Structure formats: C-alpha cells, structure tokens
C-alpha cells in the first residue's frame, strides 16, 4: 500500500525555520508553537470577516512554511489589538504580539497587501521620533490628503468642530531632550538590524 506523504521534509524544515523566525521577532514569549488549531482566535475576532486568513489559518501556514503568503496576507493589518483572542486562547499564545511581529516582517520586506496601514504607521512614528510626541493634526491631514481625499468633505466639519472645541492644537508639542531620544532610537535600530 502506498501512503501519500502529507508534508515533505523540506516543507517541515521551512515551517520550523519560519516558526522560529516569527517567535524570535515577537516581543515577549509568543508560545506560538503551542497552537492546537482550535480556532478560538478567529471566532473571537471582530475583524475576522475582512481578513484574508483567520489567525488560526495564519498559524497553520506559519508551521507549513508558507512564508510569502503569510507576509502578504492582510490578516495582521486588520488586527485591532483588542486582545479578545489573547484572553480566550486556551494555550495562552500572545496572538496580538505575533501579529505585530508579522507586520514588522512585512514592513522589512515591503510585502504588505496595501500601503494605507504602513503609511499611517510610518508618518505617525516619523513625527513621534522627530518631536518626541505624536502630532494628531499633522498626521491626519497628511493621511487623508494622501489616501482618503474623497472622505475630506465628510470629515472637514468634524475637524472644524474639534478645533472650535479646543481639541486640536495646530503646532506639534515637542519634548526637550529630542537629541537624547533620537540617540536612543538610533542605537535601537542598530541593535534591531544586528539580530
């Protein structure tokens, strides 16, 4: 009798390598290798509807070594950081942090499915690194002009309303020790690259 080999050894190796890569990228202890494929994560996820793959499927794909497909999936980008799956996971996997790690890896290889999320993150952090504080109005203005120009007519009255209620500061707040912060971050990027 011929038994079909379900996963050839190379795939298993690729899976083990990719699993190790994601685990190493995750801040804290991921426990990703503990996944029992129960699907509690996808069942708890408010954005599962719009995800290319449920979190459970993503974890199976990681173990199968499907690196490209995982890093091209919109799943981590649709994660809301609501932690519903994290408190429900019977294996206590740090799912949200794994999603962050997948986004970091997709950013590094530029494999994200579209650039709206990465752009928002990039501009937010660019301003935070420069000023030491986030700059709500600068960020939103730039983001809407670039990605949601058609939403502007709907959004403008809201922006004026917030301004009138004193909730929008035009100029960014800045911290005193910006040089210190930038030195810390520069060293942090060197360390991150050396990993």
């Amino acid at each position, binding site marked *: 009798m011929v038994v079909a080999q379900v996963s050839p050894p190379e795939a298993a190796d690729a899976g083990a390598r990719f699993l190790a890569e994601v685990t190493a990228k995750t801040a804290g202890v991921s426990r990703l290798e503990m996944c029992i494929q129960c699907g509690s994560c996808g069942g708890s996820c408010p954005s599962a509807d719009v995800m290319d793959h449920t979190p459970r499927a993503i974890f199976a794909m990681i173990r199968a070594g499907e690196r490209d497909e995982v890093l091209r999936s919109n799943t981590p980008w649709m994660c809301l950081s*609501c932690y519903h799956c994290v408190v429900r996971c019977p294996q206590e996997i740090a799912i949200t942090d794994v999603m962050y790690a997948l986004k970091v890896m997709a950013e590094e290889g530029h494999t994200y499915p579209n650039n709206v999320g990465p752009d928002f993150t990039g501009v937010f952090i660019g301003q*935070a690194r420069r000023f030491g504080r986030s700059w709500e109005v600068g960020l939103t203005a730039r983001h809407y002009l670039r990605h949601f120009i058609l939403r502007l007519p*709907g959004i403008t009255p809201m922006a004026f309303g917030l301004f009138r*209620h004193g909730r929008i500061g035009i100029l960014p707040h800045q911290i005193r020790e910006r040089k210190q912060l930038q030195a810390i971050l520069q060293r942090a990027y060197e360390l991150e690259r050396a990993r």
Partner: protein
Amino acid sequence: MSDYLYYPGCSMEGSGRSYRESLEGICEPLGISLREIDDWNCCGATEYVSLSTTPAYAMIARNLALAAGEKKDGESLVAACSACYLNLAKADHYMAQQPAFNARVNDALGAGGLHYDPGTVKVRHLLEVILNDVGLEAVKAAVKKPLTGLKVAPYLGCMVPRPDIDGSYTNHEQPDDLDRLLRALGAEVVDYPLKTECCGGHMTQVAPKLGLELIRRLVAEAERREAVMMVTVCPMCQINIDAYQGEMNAMFHTKHKMPIVFFTQLMGVAFGLDPKKVGVGREYTNASKALVKALKAAPEQALVAAGAAPARRPRPDKRALPMPRMADSEVEE
C-alpha cells in the same frame, strides 16, 4: 493625600483635553496628587510595535527610566490612556520576562545615558487606582450632586481589562468596575454587554468600513439599551465614537446621536465642579443637555441614590424565561 507619578500621553494634550481637565479637577476631592513625569515622550501607541520592535520598546522604556529616576518610595506610575497604560506595563513585563530583550532595550537606553531595571516602576491604570486606592466609599462621600436618573452605558474598551498583564482582572469581557464607580456617583447604569468590545482603534484611519461598522455596533446597542450617553476611560474610544459618528451615520444611513464622555468628567460633575471646567461641552456630539436634565432630577430620587431607600429591581414577568443577571454588585446595591 496619596502621591503618584503620572504619564498623561499625547492625546491628553489634544483631542482628549477634557480627560485631562476633568482629571485635574477630581484629584483634590479624591485626595490624590499626580506628578507628571518631566519631559515624557510618546508611547508609540499600537503603531511603533508594528514597525520595529527594539526601537518601539526603547521609546516606551525611556519613560520608565525617567519615572524610575523621579520616583519616591511607594509611588506607582499612573496612566489614564488605555494604550499608554498597556504599552508601559508591557515594556516593563517583557523586560522582566526576557533577559536578552532587557539587555537590548537597556543598550539602546544607554545611548541616551539612561537605564531601567524592570520591576522598578509599578504601572497602573487610573480607573484601577481610583477603585482600589481611593475606594468607592470615598468616592460616594465626595458626591455632592448625585447623577440621579442619568442613564449611562459603561464602555471600558479593550486595553484596560485585556490582556491583563498583571492579572488584576477576574473578568476580561464583562467586568463591572466602571459600573460600580458610575453607580457610586448616583447614575443609572444600563446593562451594556458590549462594554469591552473594540472601538476600532486606528481603523477609522486605515480601514474605514471596518472601523465605522464597529462604532455603529457600539452606538446602536447603547441606544437600544436606552442610555443617554456612553462613558469611557480611553481617549481613542472617545474620539472614535464622538467624532466619527457623523461619518458612520452617513455610511449606514442612520441618525444616531450618542454622546460619549470620560468617567472623570462625570465624577467632576457629581463632585459639584462646574461642568465647563471638567471639559463638558468639548464633545462633538453634545452631552450637556442630558447632563443638565439629570442634575435637575427630583430630590427624592437623589435620596434614593444616596442610599436612603434601596431602589428595587422590578420583578420579571412570571411567564418569562430565566435570563442571565448582572454581577452580584448590582444586587447588593
């Protein structure tokens, strides 16, 4: 007077200004004093951790290092914004958990002449501090104008009860913390099962269809439960539900008008502070009308709220099916 170190977070200076104003107002009646960390920086929200790991945590840890330097004996660090609170708590926790990670973050901090030993600073959320350190009895004692008749939906959001880094929550999905606090102010708290569902976070900026749908669910449910306003602990939840309600209405052809305020604002109003001083009126969806109406409530209702005669829960119809009830705390009050 208990002293705390305080991390405001960027929103408190801008869109969440009413949170800051009301928090400043209620410190004295609560007998707490907050000392802001000098020259604190942005925590990176949920953005930096999605971009690069070591820099993200180094940026958070700079605040912890500054706090450790300023800290006096027994002081903990209080954050009011849910995302800031979680970021600070997580950085401390992960640094303690993983020596290699700790070494990397401290190597980076060293480039700025700073150092942080995990465990030095205890990070706490404002709501937990008010409930556990100040206590509901002290809150009740400070109430001058009970919010009798004000029907509110308690909306806690995600990042305070979850992932619950320090294990202080027994119930991650239906906690009654905010309910108990609001009831102590005399408000009528409606049963709001979506109290820890997500507001969408940055999805209003990144994937509007998803973000607006999540807001629609929250607002529609609060309205269905006959709440006149929602009450939150998080600046992100506040701006999403407050400011994007118009766009949400346009998308779903609805006409919801659900105000949302910070719990500290209602505390301020109940403590007899001028509603304007605690930022009431800064919401895009106006909350003042409902508040004024509640404050004009009949005096006998105020007596009931103060505990003179316990309000009875109406008995369910005998033919009704058994329904799950809310946590015990409501029954004892």
